[in-house]
């Protein structure tokens, strides 16, 4: 068990090393002279030369690579060219809306998908089952920006129940900020519930035809107990897997929703950084998001261990 965790950490370090290398190469492969791009068309060749010298771009590529790795290892992601602040600070400043948006929409997705998936599987082929599966297809097919605009129109502009967009301005307290996340969370939650619903339904269908479910019924217990105690726990492994992946995707992929609702999150930070060619920010965000992916995958594997005694690492 402990050896497994140590092994996993070594594996995670290897993955991160590969990620760093790829990020390093991609940034260097980008066409044009970074120094010239950063300084803009009015800079003199002397200015560009000075900046290249300052950024270490004149040194041999291997020396740059080692320097880059050393810098990351010491926890330094560089400084934003646009904000003129360390990338980590910039990211931390934008993390709150993204983290809470991901968390809320994940919870909403599970709350919608899991019960419907279970009932669908249990009443397989019924009207409810057919309706829920096709609604899930529809929810997954509609682009989130359209759902977002629809919600803004009917639940914010016309009724005033929720704020239309934004994050409440600089003076907003925590609750006010969270209030601004309700609509975007519901939008993202609905979109992501489709996948979780299909997975829970399929996993549950699989389990409900297993022999031990018949044994459970033969023991004389209620259908509630058969489904919620004996079947659901066995269906959890695929469900936990897809929930983990959805969470990872949400953290990195809420760009469109953040844009529609004008949230100052990591998604909009990255879009801005790409438009401004703020390479350190792009690079830093890639590394942090990759790290979160690896971490979430590790946590999901730990959950398997808690659910299924047959899983031995």
């Amino acid at each position, binding site marked *: 068990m402990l050896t497994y965790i140590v092994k996993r950490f070594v594996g995670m370090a290897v993955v991160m090393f590969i990620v760093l290398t790829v990020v390093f190469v991609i940034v260097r492969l980008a066409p044009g002279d970074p120094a010239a791009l950063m300084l803009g068309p009015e800079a003199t060749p002397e200015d560009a030369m000075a900046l290249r010298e300052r950024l270490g771009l004149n040194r041999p590529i291997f020396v740059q690579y080692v320097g880059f790795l050393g810098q990351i290892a010491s926890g330094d992601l560089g400084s934003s060219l646009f904000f003129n602040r360390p990338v980590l600070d910039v990211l931390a400043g934008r993390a709150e809306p993204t983290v809470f948006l991901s968390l809320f929409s994940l919870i909403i997705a599970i709350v919608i998908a899991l019960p419907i998936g279970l009932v669908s599987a249990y009443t397989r082929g019924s009207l409810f089952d057919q309706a829920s599966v096709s609604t899930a297809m529809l929810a997954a097919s509609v682009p989130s920006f359209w759902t977002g605009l629809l919600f803004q129109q009917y639940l914010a502009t016309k009724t005033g129940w929720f704020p239309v967009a934004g994050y409440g301005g600089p003076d907003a307290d925590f609750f006010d900020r969270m209030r601004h996340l309700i609509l975007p969370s519901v939008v993202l939650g609905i979109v992501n519930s489709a996948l979780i619903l299909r997975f829970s339904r399929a996993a549950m269908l699989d389990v409900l035809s297993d*022999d*031990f479910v*018949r*044994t459970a019924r033969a*023991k004389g217990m209620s259908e509630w107990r058969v489904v919620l105690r*004996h079947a659901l726990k066995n269906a959890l492994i695929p469900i936990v897997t897809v929930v983990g992946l959805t969470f990872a995707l949400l953290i990195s992929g809420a760009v469109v929703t953040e844009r529609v609702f004008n949230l100052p999150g990591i998604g909009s930070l990255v879009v801005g950084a790409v438009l401004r060619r703020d390479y350190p920010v792009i690079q830093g965000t890639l590394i942090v998001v990759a790290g979160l992916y690896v971490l979430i995958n590790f946590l999901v594997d730990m959950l398997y261990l808690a659910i299924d005694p*047959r899983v031995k690492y």
Partner: protein
Amino acid sequence: MVDAPAIPRTEAPPALAKDIVLEAQNLSTHFVYKTRTAKAVRDVSFTLQKGRTLAIVGESGSGKSVTSLSAMRLLGPTGEIAGGSILYRKRDGTVVDLARQSQAAMRKIRGREISMIFQEPMTSLNPLFTVGDQIGEMLLLHERLAAPDIRRRVIEMLNLVEIPGAEQRLDDYPHQMSGGMRQRVMIAMALVCHPALLIADEPTTALDVTIQAQILDLIRRLQRELAMSVLFITHDMGVVAEVADEVAVMYAGEVVEQAPVKDIFAHPRHPYTLGLLASIPNARRDFDAAGARRRLVPIPGTVPSLYAMPPGCAFAPRCPYAVQPCGSPVHLERIAPKHLSRCIRAGEL
């Protein structure tokens, strides 16, 4: 599940002779699909005496498992009891018709009055709960015992089914046990509430031959010690010879012959039973005096489809004794005081 009784209550409270535990009367079970109906069990009647073992024998698709699942009312969403009754004498002496009980009433009967063990010990236990938990769940459901009492009773039961080191094995998961051990756990689970009737649906089919014998011995010993009746479902005539007092042979959803076990083996009175007995492998008989291998005798042909039963005797198309009248319906007739056969030529066999 829908809580409606399978068929509406019509007659007066059912009566059952004093020494009878279970009696099926003209039981028919169908599986209804959108376009067609499979008549899996047709007009089946049998009786099981207190403390005795009735073996239902037949090949795959003969309806033997469906008969037992009908008694448990575990037929699933497509299965329904289309006619007949299954009378059962409860431990308190009252007689109920299992075919007409609500699912809520059945939940009080399953596990406490009638328990069932299944063919596949590898998959019939829940892989995510310890065996102690799964056996103890019975006591929680039916006797509402507290945790320490449950633990004590589970250990007692594991000792009774001869699982060594019961106090430790209690916390094992099914995957940590062998097939034979798991079947012992299934038996412990089935019997922990001391049911009056055990339905064993091919409990040894998936096990090694040596383990089979141990499990059969165990079931017989516990049957004596707990004064239990057993309905034993099997396709194996060797197992029948080991465990049964009475035998009902099923073919294509019908009982074709029923008799005490020694009569079935000594004087089979149905061509299908004859065929079953001829197709048992036997190490000694399979070589002749010169040491040459004799061929096994298979029954030619296959079981007719449940959707296209012949109008007369279902076995006639495969029967070496078939004559023209076999094309009309043939009934189960009493040919000796304890011997029933569904064959017009039973007297000639």
